[in-house]
């Protein structure tokens, strides 16, 4: 979504889902995994909306929807591409919206060659390095900078725009006849994604597919809107980003973005997964989407870095203000003009330092010490035995959690120890288990899946040595500052300069989380006064701000907006502006300028949200405008002045984070695997790619090595499609629900879900023991034989898919084999996200021999 619209976040408030006329849940089992948010879909259904579930498994979500479309795991792009084709070929797209607000009319460089011409590969492919040079993907004569650090940090290419975007608008053909305009490229690219092709690839009957395509198109336009809801069923593939891209193209074409009931809702799995992306504990970003400096980019000096990362046009032109303010917040008086605000203190990247390569770095002895905060990779990470192998190689390991987790006691009870491959005496890792306080026992803020920053109170004191993670990091920092005190080494200067003076409370000397939130919000350096909005930030060192997008969350002394708890009454307007804080600037629906037509009038009375008020000379409505509040709809850039920043965007450019203000149906820069989504088979697949000679994503991140082998396509030893999933009652790999008596009792042990036809073929009865195997390992688990999984007919062949919840391990009350022991480490081309949803395996009745038989698997 970052590359398509400008920000990598769900676009609407959760309660806005009730305003949609058509809701497609795809890549998510929302009724079971986000049940409380699913209420808004049922509310929409009561108002007459059509609910659709597209998923390999028939679940409670399917049962509550009007249409259920089964698809084989990993074929989402074929399905969505089919809808894009249907919409384009039958002229069902929202022409006034897409022509004005997307890059559909933009003309792409002449050298551009599509995957359609090159059998699944785009122009610019470098086979030796498995990556693309994106020169031919640009607007003709332009270089378009990417909108978001999250995506371009991974690319080695310069995103610098020498100013071509300021010279004039990108060339367009409003008649859409130019052979290289985005419209024509889209039509050619998806021409073969016919309903018949969709059926051959996905296994979804073409009649069912057509019902979905027609329902979505019927419910889009000036009077109606549709929303997609997705979760990790879309992201956990080597083409995860491109699945979301396909959805973004569709929503851009249909005008379902920035409007009431129109958008894309990313359903995230952890309480603050959005927050930990915004204020990132991620390697490639500094707080709120500023790129981490990279040794292999033009980032040597601060000037180089700013020059490289500051686009000439669009909102990100303000980048230097946010960067200097961050350095001021981190290094205080140590950030001075003469030391480039402490830029050299920041460590530089030298590669992909995300979780999958980090796991391999542990196994290779590169990472020697590891902290784990409320995560459980021994259960939750793919190829869990390789994870155990890595943990055993560490010098030291610190695990913070509520109760004993598999990651902390792997040396005692892990799979490798149980199988007799190793013993505690052979494992040299020094392990610390530090008990952690839970919400209720500490205060702080979570950011929910729709960007809502909500404060939670401390109601009680945690028992014993339980402490908040804030306490742990703060006091560890204090001790380290003491250990390094007096050092004059250049390498230690950053730590010594780091501002670290948060007020302490009570006997436990708990740091005040509100003081941290105030720093994230930002303040003026001279008098320490809170700033109210990020428009006040400066690049001269006079302001400090730990996360510019969160400005406004603590706008005044004593005013913590995240703690505000005033909902709207039944009379509306229902945007609940005084319930907590939504970044940015309390905007509830992103890109909401698009809820009005180019002249600034609502598209329809039924779907109005923001409109231009000529009398007041500003944008007004039920939400905070995601736009310059006083910019007239008829304002046009004065290209004779080479406009910079927002001056280069007109009053009808709603996507202000993009360099041209348009929704990117075609993405010139920012993606590693192509400007358009293309159907590739999963790395492990029982079938060949029917559409192209290229079998799987040519830029997928693969790390083949002993212990991390892949099953070849069509490998007869591993004939079944395998997917993993979650359960309502147990939360991810996290231990809290497996030690909570009620939830553990409701889901007491692991199982594998098998279609009835396959079970009959293999002689497996309900609750029989079975053995699942891949090239990474074998596990034994009980069978659950159901009709919820149906055999697929793929290009004339019957293909079975089986599924297993991955939430079990050997600790807590609810136990069972970890499904992740079967998975391997390889990642999405753009994000390095692992694949858990589509791979292959074998299945047989019976049990493992004694060495492999896990004591946790029961009798």
């Amino acid at each position, binding site marked *: 979504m970052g590359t398509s619209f400008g920000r990598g976040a769900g676009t609407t408030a959760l309660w806005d889902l009730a305003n949609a006329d058509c809701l497609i849940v795809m890549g998510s089992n929302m009724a079971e995994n986000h049940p*409380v*948010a699913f209420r808004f879909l049922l509310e929409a259904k009561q108002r007459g909306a059509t609910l659709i579930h597209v998923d390999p498994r028939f679940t409670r979500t399917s049962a509550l929807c009007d249409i259920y479309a089964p698809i084989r795991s990993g074929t989402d792009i074929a399905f969505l591409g089919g809808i894009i084709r249907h919409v384009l070929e039958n002229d069902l797209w929202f022409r006034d919206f897409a022509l004005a607000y997307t890059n559909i009319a933009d003309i792409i460089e002449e050298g551009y060659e599509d995957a359609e011409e090159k059998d699944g590969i785009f122009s610019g492919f470098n086979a030796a390095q498995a990556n693309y040079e994106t020169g031919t993907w640009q607007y003709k004569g332009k270089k378009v900078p990417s909108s978001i650090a999250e995506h371009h940090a991974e690319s080695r290419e310069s995103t610098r725009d020498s100013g071509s975007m300021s010279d004039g608008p990108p060339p367009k053909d409003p008649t859409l006849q130019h052979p290289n305009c985005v419209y024509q490229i889209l039509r050619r690219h998806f021409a073969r994604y016919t309903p018949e092709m969709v059926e051959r690839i996905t296994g979804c009957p073409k009649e069912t597919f057509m019902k979905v395509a027609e329902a979505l198109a019927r419910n889009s336009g000036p009077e109606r809107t549709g929303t997609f809801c997705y979760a990790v069923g879309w992201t956990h593939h080597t083409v995860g980003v491109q699945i979301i891209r396909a959805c973004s193209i569709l929503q851009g074409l249909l005008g379902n973005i920035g409007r009431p009931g129109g958008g894309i809702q990313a*359903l995230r*799995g952890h*309480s*603050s*997964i959005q*927050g*930990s992306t915004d*204020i*990132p*504990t991620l390697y490639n970003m*500094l707080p709120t989407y500023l790129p*981490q400096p990279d*040794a292999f980019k033009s980032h040597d000096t601060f000037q180089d870095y700013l020059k490289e990362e500051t686009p000439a046009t669009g909102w990100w032109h303000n980048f230097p203000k946010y960067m200097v303010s961050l350095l001021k917040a981190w290094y205080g008086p140590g950030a001075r003009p003469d030391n480039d605000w402490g830029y*050299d203190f*920041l460590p*530089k990247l030298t590669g992909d*330092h995300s*979780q999958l390569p*980090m796991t391999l770095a542990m196994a290779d002895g590169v990472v*020697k*010490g*590891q*902290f784990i*905060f409320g*995560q459980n990779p021994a259960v939750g990470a793919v190829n869990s035995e390789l994870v155990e192998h890595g943990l055993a190689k560490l*010098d030291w390991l610190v695990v913070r959690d*509520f*109760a004993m987790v598999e990651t902390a006691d792997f040396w*005692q009870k892990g799979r490798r120890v149980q199988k007799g491959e190793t013993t*505690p*005496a052979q494992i*040299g890792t020094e392990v*610390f*288990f530090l*008990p952690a306080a*839970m919400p*209720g026992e500490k205060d*702080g*803020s*979570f950011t*929910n899946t729709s960007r*809502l920053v*909500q404060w*939670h109170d401390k109601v*009680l004191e945690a028992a014993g*040595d339980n402490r908040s993670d*804030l306490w742990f*990091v703060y006091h560890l920092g204090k001790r380290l500052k003491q250990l390094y005190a007096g050092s004059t080494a250049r*390498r230690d200067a*950053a730590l010594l300069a780091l501002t670290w003076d948060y007020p302490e409370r009570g006997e436990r000397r708990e740091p005040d989380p509100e003081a*941290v939130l105030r720093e994230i919000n930002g303040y003026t350096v001279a008098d320490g006064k809170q700033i109210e909005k990020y428009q006040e930030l400066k690049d001269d060192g006079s302001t400090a701000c*730990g996360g510019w997008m969160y400005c406004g969350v603590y706008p005044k002394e004593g005013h913590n907006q995240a703690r505000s708890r005033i*909902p709207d009454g039944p009379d509306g307007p229902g945007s609940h502006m005084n319930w907590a804080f939504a970044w940015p600037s309390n905007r509830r629906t992103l890109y909401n300028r698009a809820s009005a037509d180019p002249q600034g009038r609502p598209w329809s009375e039924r779907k109005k949200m923001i409109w231009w008020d000529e009398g007041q000379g500003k944008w007004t409505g039920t939400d905070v405008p995601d736009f310059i509040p006083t910019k007239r709809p008829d304002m046009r850039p004065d290209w004779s002045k080479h406009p910079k920043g927002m001056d280069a965007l007109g009053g009808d450019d709603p996507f202000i984070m993009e360099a041209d203000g348009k929704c990117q149906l075609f993405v010139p820069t920012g993606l590693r695997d192509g400007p358009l989504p293309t159907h590739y088979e999963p790395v492990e697949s029982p079938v060949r790619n029917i559409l192209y000679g290229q079998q799987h994503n040519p830029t997928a991140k693969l790390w083949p090595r002993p212990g991390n082998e892949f099953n070849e396509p069509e490998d007869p030893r591993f004939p079944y499609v395998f997917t993993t999933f979650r359960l309502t009652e147990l939360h991810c790999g*996290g231990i809290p629900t497996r*030690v909570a*008596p009620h*939830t553990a009792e409701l889901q007491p042990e692991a199982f594998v879900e098998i279609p009835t036809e396959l079970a009959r073929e293999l002689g497996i009865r309900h609750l029989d023991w079975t053995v699942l195997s891949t090239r990474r390992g074998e596990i034994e688990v009980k069978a659950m034989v159901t009709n919820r999984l149906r055999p697929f007919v793929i290009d004339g062949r019957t293909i079975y898919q089986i599924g297993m919840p991955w939430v079990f391990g050997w600790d807590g009350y609810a136990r069972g084999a970890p499904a992740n022991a079967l998975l391997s480490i390889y990642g999405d081309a753009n994000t390095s996200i*692992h694949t858990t949803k589509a791979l292959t395996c074998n299945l047989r009745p019976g049990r493992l021999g004694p060495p492999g038989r896990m004591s946790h698997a029961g009798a």
Partner: protein
Amino acid sequence: MKKLRRGIAGRISGFVRDWSLPRQFAGQSVMSEAAKSTLSKTLRPRLEEADAVGTSICPFCAVGCSQLIYAKNGKPIHIEGDPRSPVNQGTLCPKGAATLGALLSPERINTVLYRAPHSDTWERKPLDWAMERIAQLVKKTRDDTFVEKLPSGKRVNHTLGIGSLGGATMDNEENYLIKKLFGGGLGIVNIENQARI
């Protein structure tokens, strides 16, 4: 609670008095008046015993349901959905409704556990000892692995020897301090959380 009546006559009259059906036929609502009995009049909601209440956010998925946590003498006694929240309007899912069970789980460990290299057991250690030991280990590993410049002469100022995983279950303030101390202070680049998995 006072003892209820004894004897056949008393039991019969008590039964007749508490029998709900005639009152329902008389038009009383089964949801209120007709549901009352001698016993129900003596029952009190346990929330009345709470001496503290606060607004929390459910610690599980990212929907962000508001919860009300009620406590008595510093112990949680009840957790329910906050009816004011436009997100959950008082409801909770099975996980959210079990938050009290997680908070009070007998499996929680309230002391620091330490496993020495090659040992086959956990031992209890004081928190202060563990914090100091961890700080020393961080310093040693950092000092051993810190790289100021690549062989090419490029300045990197980082260590690849220490990693940090986790954060998606934690507060924004906690993530901020991790990134600030580990990245901005110590030069650690291997910082990741569940957002990518």
